[in-house]
Structure formats: C-alpha cells, structure tokens
C-alpha cells in the first residue's frame, strides 16, 4: 500500500507554554488578531490571561467570546464578518473543539464568500486565510493539529465538516495547566473523544503506519491516565499525558480518518444535543467489533493496547468481542452514560440509523454496513 503521511502543525508543549502565546503570534508576523473563546473560559480567567499575554507582546486584539457548543454555521458566519470588518491578520483560539473549529470556520470565510455550507467536504482550492494559533483547554478534540472542522448546519439540521489546508493552524500550544480546571464529567467525555479518534483511525481505510503508531500510543496512554485524570483532576502528570494522547489521536485521525463511530456521534449530537465525546463513546465498542471482520489485525492491536491478551489463533469475531468488552470497561470506568441513561428513547434508534448512513463521514467506513445493521449496533449498545 502506498500512503501519505500528513503532519501539519508545529506544536509547542509544556506547563506554562501558553505564556509564550504573544511571543509566538508576533513571530508569525501578526499585528491584530481575533481571539476566539467561549464565555465559560472567560469566567475561569484563562481567556483574560491569554489576551493580556498577547497585548503585552504588542498585538492588537479583537475578541469573539460567543462560541457555542457544536458551532452553528450562522455563528461562524457572524464571527467571520467581524474578522473581515476588523481586518485581522491572525486568529488565536482558546478552548475546546468548539472554539478551535469556530476559528477554522472563520478562517475559511476570511477570503472565501459565505455561506460556509458550500465548502463542506474536501476542499482543495479554497483561498488561504490568516495564520492561526490554537490553545486547547480540553484533552479530546485533537482539532489543534487537524485539517478539518466540524460545523452544525442549521438549515439542514446536521453536522458536516470542511476539510482544507485553510483549517490548519500555524502553531498549536499545549499547556497542560490550562486543563487542570476541567471538571470530571468533561474530563471523561473529552477523554473518550480522543479514544474514539484513536481506535477509529486505527481501523479506518486510510490508516497508515504513522497514524497506527500514534493511535496505539494514544490508546495506551488514555487507558492508563484517563481514569486517573477523571478521579483526580489536579494530577498534572495525568493532565499532561491526556493532552499528549489527545494530540497524538488528532494527528492519527488526520491521517487515518474516523468513520462509523463519528457518523453515529454526529447524528446523535445533532438530534439529542449530547456532548460530542459521549456521543462518540456510546456505541464505540460495538463499532470496533464491527470493524474486526476486515480490520482484525488492527482490532487485535487495540486489545493489546488495552492490556487484553488474546490467543494466537483468535478469530476475527473473538478479537472483535474482546475489544468490545475492553473498550466498554474503559468507558464505564469514567462513568460515561449509555443511551438509555442519556434519556434517548429506544424507538428513536430506528429513525437514527438511516441518518447515520446519510452522514457525510459514512463514506469512510471500512466496509459497507446497511442501516438495519447500524440499528442493531445501536440497540446492542443502548443499555450496555
């Protein structure tokens, strides 16, 4: 197989590294930047620290603090108008996946006319935007190192994504200290998002040895450190390891891509507005079990990373079942609710399944699965 290794984003990592934001933004030649974050981040003081750091470096600031979860296209279009009117020459995003994806969406629209929905899909000919610096405050999205952003399409009521070099940051700054204040519930949900990126990219049709290596390391790290970070948010080593795992998983899925788990997550997220990480996790064990039919070598790797021993001659079905059990145990260990606990009615599954196979990312599944089998996966995961 011939493959291409896509490594996009230079990254600066370490406790306190976010204090170099101003310095780095100035090095990129930016004089006036749009700082993108949500109001919650301002409340905990992180946004102000970064803004002050930028100002101290002599960078002019325009703030957009209206980031919403599952960023809607309309919000991105409003923010992009601010960016264009203010003629910013850089964007700094601070926060989780929503803030970073908002920044990417804004960057798409800096030199390409709205609406953004016309750019959904793989875009090779978009006009470039401005330099972007991403500072994640959660350990899950991996968006700081990817070339895509996920956007809620308000007119169609679903999620779609733009995949383009315009979505690639000039720099990611990974400061574990910024994740210390993340509450346990969010630590868990973002952590399983990273887990989903890792296991799906490993089993995706586009995976390659580089993404496999990154994904394996991410799985090992998450298996060990996510339960610790969940129980003790102040454990800086656990926070650092999770931030690293999240980045590794982001790099992995930039190469290997994600598939059925994310099509399920985007569909559940769009209908029931549950956190993305939770939506990724609810059926992830069954999704990986399904992939074992063709990707059993990769699923065996997942088992190994999770510390599950398998006999040499284990069949694809046995490998799949073992992976399902191990993934479910890990997900349960950080109290991720199942669909029943989330209040999703069982009758909804029949309606969700056809939407899953209509999701844009469904094209990436390792082998074709009809809506009836997606429904079976969801049913099996419903109370698990």
């Amino acid at each position, binding site marked *: 197989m011939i493959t291409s290794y896509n490594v996009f984003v230079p990254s600066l990592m370490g406790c306190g590294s976010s204090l170099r934001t101003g310095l780095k933004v100035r090095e990129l030649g930016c004089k006036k930047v749009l700082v993108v974050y949500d109001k919650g981040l301002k409340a905990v003081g992180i946004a102000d620290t970064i803004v002050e750091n930028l100002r101290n470096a002599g960078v002019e600031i325009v703030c957009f603090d209206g980031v919403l979860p599952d960023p809607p296209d309309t919000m991105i279009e409003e923010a992009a108008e601010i960016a264009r009117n203010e003629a910013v020459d850089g964007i700094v995003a601070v926060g989780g996946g929503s803030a970073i994806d908002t920044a990417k969406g804004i960057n798409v629209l800096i030199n390409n006319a709205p609406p953004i929905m016309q750019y959904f899909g793989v875009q090779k000919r978009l006009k470039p935007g401005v330099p972007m610096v991403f500072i994640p405050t959660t350990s899950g999205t991996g968006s700081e190192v990817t070339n895509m952003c996920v956007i809620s399409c308000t007119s169609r009521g679903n999620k779609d994504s733009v995949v383009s070099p315009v979505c690639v940051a000039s720099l990611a700054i990974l400061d574990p200290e910024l994740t210390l204040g993340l509450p346990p519930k969010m630590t868990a949900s973002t952590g399983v998002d990273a887990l989903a990126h890792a296991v799906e990219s490993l089993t995706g049709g586009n995976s390659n040895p580089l993404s496999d290596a990154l994904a394996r390391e991410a799985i090992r790290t998450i298996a060990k450190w996510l339960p610790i970070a969940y129980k003790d948010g102040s454990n800086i080593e656990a926070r650092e390891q999770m931030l690293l795992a999240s980045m590794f998983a982001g790099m992995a899925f930039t190469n290997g891509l994600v598939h059925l788990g994310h099509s399920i997550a985007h569909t559940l997220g769009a209908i029931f507005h549950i956190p993305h990480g939770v939506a990724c996790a609810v059926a992830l064990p069954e999704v990986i079990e399904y992939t074992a039919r063709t990707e059993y070598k990769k699923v065996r790797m997942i088992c190994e990373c999770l510390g599950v021993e398998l006999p040499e001659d284990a069949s694809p079905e046995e490998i799949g079942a073992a992976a399902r059990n191990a993934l479910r145990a890990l997900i349960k260990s950080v109290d991720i609710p199942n669909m029943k606990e989330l209040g999703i009615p069982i009758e909804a599954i029949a309606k969700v399944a056809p939407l899953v196979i209509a999701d844009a990312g469904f*094209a990436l599944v390792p082998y074709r699965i009809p809506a009836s089998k997606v429904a079976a996966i969801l049913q099996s995961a419903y109370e698990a």
Partner: protein
Amino acid sequence: MWSKLIIDMKALTVTKEPLDAEFQELGGRALIAQYMIKNVPPQCDPLGNQNQLLFCNTVFAGTKLTTTHRLSIGSKSPLTGGIKESNVGGYAASLLADQGIKLIVVKELPSSEGLWLLHIDSKGKATLKDASIYQGINNYELVEKIHERFGNKLATISIGSAGERQYKNASIQVSEFGSGHPSRAAARGGLGAVMGSKGLKAIVIEKPEERYKVEYADEAKFNEICQKLNKVIAEAASNDPFHNIGTIATIEVTGANGILPVDNFSGRLFPEYTEVGANKFMTNLATRGGRNKLACQPGCVVQCSNCYNDKDGNYLTSGFEYETIALFGPNCHISDLDAIAQMDRICDDIGVDTIETANTIAVCMEAGKIKWGDADAALSLLKEMADGTEFGRLLGNGCEAVGKSLGCKRIPVVKHQAMAGYDPRNTKGTGITYATSPMGADHTAGLTMGRAFDDTGRTAQAYVSNKLQVAMCFADSMMCIFAFAHTVPVLPLFGELMAALYGGSPDFTRVSVGLGVKTLLTERAYNKMAGMTIEDDRLPDFFYNERSIATGSKFDINNVELEVLFDF
C-alpha cells in the same frame, strides 16, 4: 396508453398490445430487469429460443425532458451469461415514443434460415418483411438501402455481418438523429448476436403521421419541473468538456494519471497520449470539415457527438468516443488517431463493440500475434473479423476467448466482458464497479474517477461505487447519463417528475429505490439464478498482483468490501 409490440420470430407474427399494467411506471434499465426476471428463464441459452430481445423506452419517454429518448436494449447476454441492458442514443427511441411504443419484445427463433426486417410505418402499422436480400450487408450500406427503400424520415436499429454470424462481441447499431449514420452502438454484451440468432436484421421506425400523446397526471406541473431540469442541465452542459470537445476530452485527464489503459492494462503511462487527445481531435475537425457539438437524439443539450472526416475531408466516422480511442489507441500502443477512426468505422459497420474488440486486439499484441502499435496489423485483424475467417470468427467471440486461445495470461475481463478505458488500480472505485456490476466490466455502471478521496487509495471507493451504481440504474431508466450527471444538485426533482407524470407521491425513493436499488438487486438475482457466484465479482488476478508502473498502485480492495457492496 403505451403499446407493446410482440414479435414472434417462429410464427413470424407481430402483435400490438397495450403495455402490461405492471410495467406502466417503468422504463429503460428498470423495465428490462423486471421484464427479464419474470419472462426469460435465467438458465436459458442466450442464442436459443427461450431468450428474448427487448427494446424499450425510458420512464419519461414522449416528454420534453432532455435526452430522455435513450433506447434500452435487453436480453440474456451471450458474452457474460447474465442479464444485459445496453442503452444507446440515436433517433430510434424518439420515433418509437412518437409511435406510442414503450416496449418491443422479440421472441423465439425462426424455424428456417432467413432474415427479416421489422417495419413500423408512418401509420403505426408494424410488419415483418423478408430481408434476405440484405444478408451479409453491413450497417452503413444497409442504412443507405433502407433509406432508398423507405425514405429518410425514419430511424434504424440494425446488425451487420457480425450479428448475423452471432459473434459474442456483436453490437446493435442505431442511426443518429440528423445524419442517419448507424454510428450509435448498443455495444456491450453481444446483443447483436441475439438479434442475429432471431434472424432480425433491422427495425425500421418511420416518423408517424400522428404523434403519440403521453398521458400526464398533471401536465402543467410536469412541464414546469421539466423546464427547471432542462435549464439546469443546459447551463451546466455549456461548460462541460463533453459538449465543448467530446468524450475524447477524458484522455487529457486519464493520460496523465495512469487511469488511461496502456499496452493491455500494463499500468504504464503512454507519453504520446496527446497524439490521440483533445487538441489533435479538434484540429482535425477544424481542418477537415468535421464537427462536434452534435446531438445524437432530438432535443439533447449536451451534444457530445461528432462527425470525424479523413485527411481528404470525406466522412469517416461519427460518435467517435473516448473508450474507442483509449482502447484502440494507447491500450494497443497506437497513437494514430486516423487509424483509430478507421477502426471505429469498421466496428460500427460490421456491428461490434469497440471496447471488446479493442481489448481483443490488445491481447493479440500481448500474445505476440501482431506487434504492439502496429495499426495496419490491427486493421487486418478487423478485416478478418469482417470477412469471417476462422481466426476472425474467434476474434468475434471477444477478448477472453482470444486471450485463452493464444495463451495470454493477462486477460482484462470481468464476467467474460472486457474492461472499459480505465485502469482499476488507479480508479479503484471503478474497479469495484467492474467487479460487482451485474453487467460485467462496465464503466457506465459507475465510473468513480475523481469522486472518492484519492483515485488510487482504498478509502470511500466502495461507498462511491455503491452510490453511483444505484444512480446509474435509475439514470439508465430515465435519460442519458451525461445529461443526468448535471442534475445531481436537484435530484429530488425527479421524484416530482414521477408524480406529475404518473400521479402519486413526489417521493424521490420512487426513483432511487424503485428504479435504482430494486433494479440492481433484480439484476443480481437474475445472474445468481443464471449460475453466477461471488467468485464472478472479482477482478482478474493480475490487477491484484501487478503494480501499475504509473502510480505503484495495486488493486487492494478486500473481498469483504466487494461482497457486502449491495447490502441495503
């Protein structure tokens, strides 16, 4: 109400009946599939008395939808041994619709040797006439004689000597709108042999004095939606290379990226591909009085057809297409466009599939029978086929028959049918289509080029092949796929069109499932009953084992992806 003509070649009778209620809302490929599974035993001998030959119009025949007058011809294929629907442009479907005929069924075999011609006159009377005087006469001369006898206000559907000899690569040729040249081919799968087995030399359809009027559930609504669709298609077509140049424009893409087959699908590049490319073609048209932007059927806005003259400015061929040029050209290491045009003319004239024939020539080259790139030798082989020499008759049985006979190890066929002008290692979704289409290795069943992530990668290829194979099924039931390609942003309009024509709900699933998925699954069921197995859904080994030198790629799609492709 639409009519059905039943031609019994044993009794030599023609019966006109109203179209069966169960087929009223069907047309094209969808109608062929449903008719075949109900009426033609899947295990029958394709050239025997149980097989039937069908000619039918599309779902929207008789309306103003652009390119809807595409003629679908169906039967059990003597080449693949499975179901076959081969559709063709030209004038015939339009005149059949004007005659109020949705379906012609040709049954049985003649009880004695002979040739007949089905004549549908301007008053709508259909009769079988003795055609033994046309025996051995090829399509161009035949059409001239038909024009002399019946006038010019007609369309022809005919076979040449290849069909009469029941070559498995024999085509059925249809005359072009305007010129009347028999240059449009229902080429694939040897349907000309089925027509030959039935002793039917030609169908002549005269322009009726009174034009059949389609019954609409809501004519005003239909015309409103139809106008919208026609506008979308016309606007997009004006920027379409198929309109501005012709299908030969495809070479400019495939020649550079290894999709263009070279030297019997060797996987190499052919640096001289521009010699058989768009510029050369356009220059030759301009300097020799040739033309492009011609419509093969009335009302077509894509107008991809052409008329290609020789060096002296005399008519040589028309409907000169990418497939023919790619496969007689680079795939035989030939870079002489005029020689390829001569080959195209011979194929149309004797009535054989250019794709099957060109692949057959390429395996002759691979086996050392003639030299690579030797256009004269290739032309002599075509002459042998025309003359019906012993080797010529073998050539007429197609690429696989010749390859096996000459001991060639690399035979590019699926379900015994030769591949079109796309290397499946470098457009893997197209490879999936070749492998899994009930039609055999057929690009028109779902050409994924440029539509998946990376043509040489595995990701999303099966997904795109599946989507396109379904879409091609319903497109082939409605109109020409070149016009259809421009309707993707407004697909739901076809559901509304169905409702305005036939009544009922404007639900797009009437099209996507009713004409698409159902057709595909019916065809597969037919093939299964005909004896095909999962092993028939594979590419030849060499695509899995040999690298394409152009890209380093092999066909690495796993069997599970092929096996579950049609799980709906």
